[in-house]
């Protein structure tokens, strides 16, 4: 019998441990549908805010070779317009749809989450970590008490799973414990890391926003350390590992560190949507060749004594 890739994540059942990471393609029903068809186990929407956001002007993306830099600026149609896409996805998509929620304050998080829940999302992910949009993301997540208050409020209106997406700067077991104590079911670790790039030829910054978020293989060791440490101290907390997943080996590395599932993001720039199948088949072959029956056996396996 071929090894099982199904995983359970705070009550969500995933056909395999791959999840489309937030910020990538999850802005419309058509794209969400294509990612489902590509094989993903779940999808996370782009971060949705109360009002529509235009995002930054170009350039917004740089392929550095060893990783990627982006500063999209949280472009999204706003919750009112996105609600229709989300409702359509909730009705027609068979894999879990996790709504990524953004906000400048508790009120905005609450309002957006309420609409997302009403539209039928499977779970909520709170963006406490986007590193390049003033007032949002990391600026919220760097105030741990504020983040706890937001989590508590969201918990009070959601019977569905709530994940906190955290920055590498705050990916510490003591902070994650406080989030769990405030009502989060699990964490998504890590977001991109604040970074910038300058063109030597033009002698100017490349991104129009100057600062962006670094992703790709170069941040994977940071994600591995964060996941390893959280898993070591908190053996039962559901963790979605994100950071540099560019193939099955990278996905497995995060799982061995302690992730229950893994986010796939900017690697799509190089491998396109085929990356989901590549990871799924690679994991299955690895499990079979090593005699494991289920991917669940490997969560945190690298920490066995």
């Amino acid at each position, binding site marked *: 019998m071929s090894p099982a890739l199904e995983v359970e994540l705070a009550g969500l059942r995933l056909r395999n441990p791959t999840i489309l990471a937030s910020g990538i393609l999850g802005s419309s029903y058509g794209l969400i549908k*294509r990612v489902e068809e590509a094989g993903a186990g779940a999808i996370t929407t782009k971060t949705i805010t109360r009002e529509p956001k235009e995002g930054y002007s170009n350039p917004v993306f740089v392929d550095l070779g060893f990783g990627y830099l*982006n500063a999209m600026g949280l472009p999204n149609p706003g919750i009112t317009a996105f609600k229709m896409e989300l409702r359509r996805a909730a009705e027609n998509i068979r894999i879990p749809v996790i709504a990524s929620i953004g906000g400048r304050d508790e009120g905005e998080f609450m309002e957006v989450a309420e609409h997302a829940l009403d539209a039928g999302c499977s779970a909520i992910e709170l963006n406490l970590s986007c590193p390049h949009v003033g007032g949002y993301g990391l600026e919220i997540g760097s105030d741990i008490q504020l983040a706890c208050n937001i989590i508590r409020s969201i918990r009070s209106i959601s019977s569905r799973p709530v994940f906190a997406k955290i920055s590498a700067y705050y990916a510490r077991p003591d902070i994650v414990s406080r989030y769990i104590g405030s009502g989060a079911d699990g964490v998504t670790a890590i977001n991109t890391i604040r970074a910038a790039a300058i063109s030597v030829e033009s002698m100017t910054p490349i991104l129009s926003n100057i600062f962006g978020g670094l992703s790709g293989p170069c941040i994977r060791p940071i994600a591995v350390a964060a996941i390893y440490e959280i898993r070591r101290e908190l053996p039962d907390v559901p963790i979605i590992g994100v950071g540099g997943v560019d193939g099955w080996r990278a996905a497995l590395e995060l799982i061995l560190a302690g992730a229950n599932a893994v986010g796939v993001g900017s690697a799509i720039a190089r491998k396109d949507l085929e990356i989901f199948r590549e990871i799924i088949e690679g994991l299955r072959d690895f499990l079979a060749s090593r005699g494991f029956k289920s991917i669940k056996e490997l969560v945190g396996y690298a920490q066995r004594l």
Partner: protein
Amino acid sequence: MSYITGVIERLRDLTKNIKEYEIILEDRVEPEPGQFAMLWIPRVGEIPLSFADAEDNIVKFIVARVGRVTGYMHERLMAGDRVFIRGPLGRGFTWAPSGRALLVAGGYGLAPLYFLAKNLRIAGCSVKALLGFKSDDDIFYREEFARLGEVEISVEHGSSGYHGTVLDLFRSVIRGRSYDVVYVCGKEELNLAVMRECLRAGLPVEASFERRIKCGAGICGSCSIEPLGLRVCRDGPILDGRMIAPMLEADED
């Protein structure tokens, strides 16, 4: 993929709103007709442009003045100025090495079709181009296309060629003679209308689509054609009629 540095070798006015830029790149690029590049002007912006021609390390872009970045290009860029490109990006036209091709262009949509026509001619295809413009003053690239095959011009206001839209011209041309394949690039209504007619007639058709392109890498989703979820920067910009068919049916309801 980082930027390739280029220097503007030559620029010329094609009409009062459209310029042609010939750029010498420090590295060779090998785009397929229909592919595009992101052209970055530091501190100004970055825009997608279809290759209008490419040979070794020399590329040509046809740029209509439509917004902030193209406005800057028209007013400020001069021969000798440095620009930066990343590409080639996206999926180009597919083309058979023989047969009769009909090209349908709306205005500056002729840019990728000119590059395609050159390649079709080299491959031994016969090419007929229908070029649509608003008025006599907007006509450009007629002679360039004439060197590659047959050309018919349409203008909505004026005295040159066919009087009417290029869609009307296409309808009259397609009735008279048979073609093996149709390529179209223009406003979305033109693309969709030509695609619909070709699909009905069982004729292979490809169109070049336009959207606001941001990442250019297929990850941000800004340029998705909904509800199909087709990314212009990655699945396109050239899309086959069969891929668009579900949208055409929905349109007719």
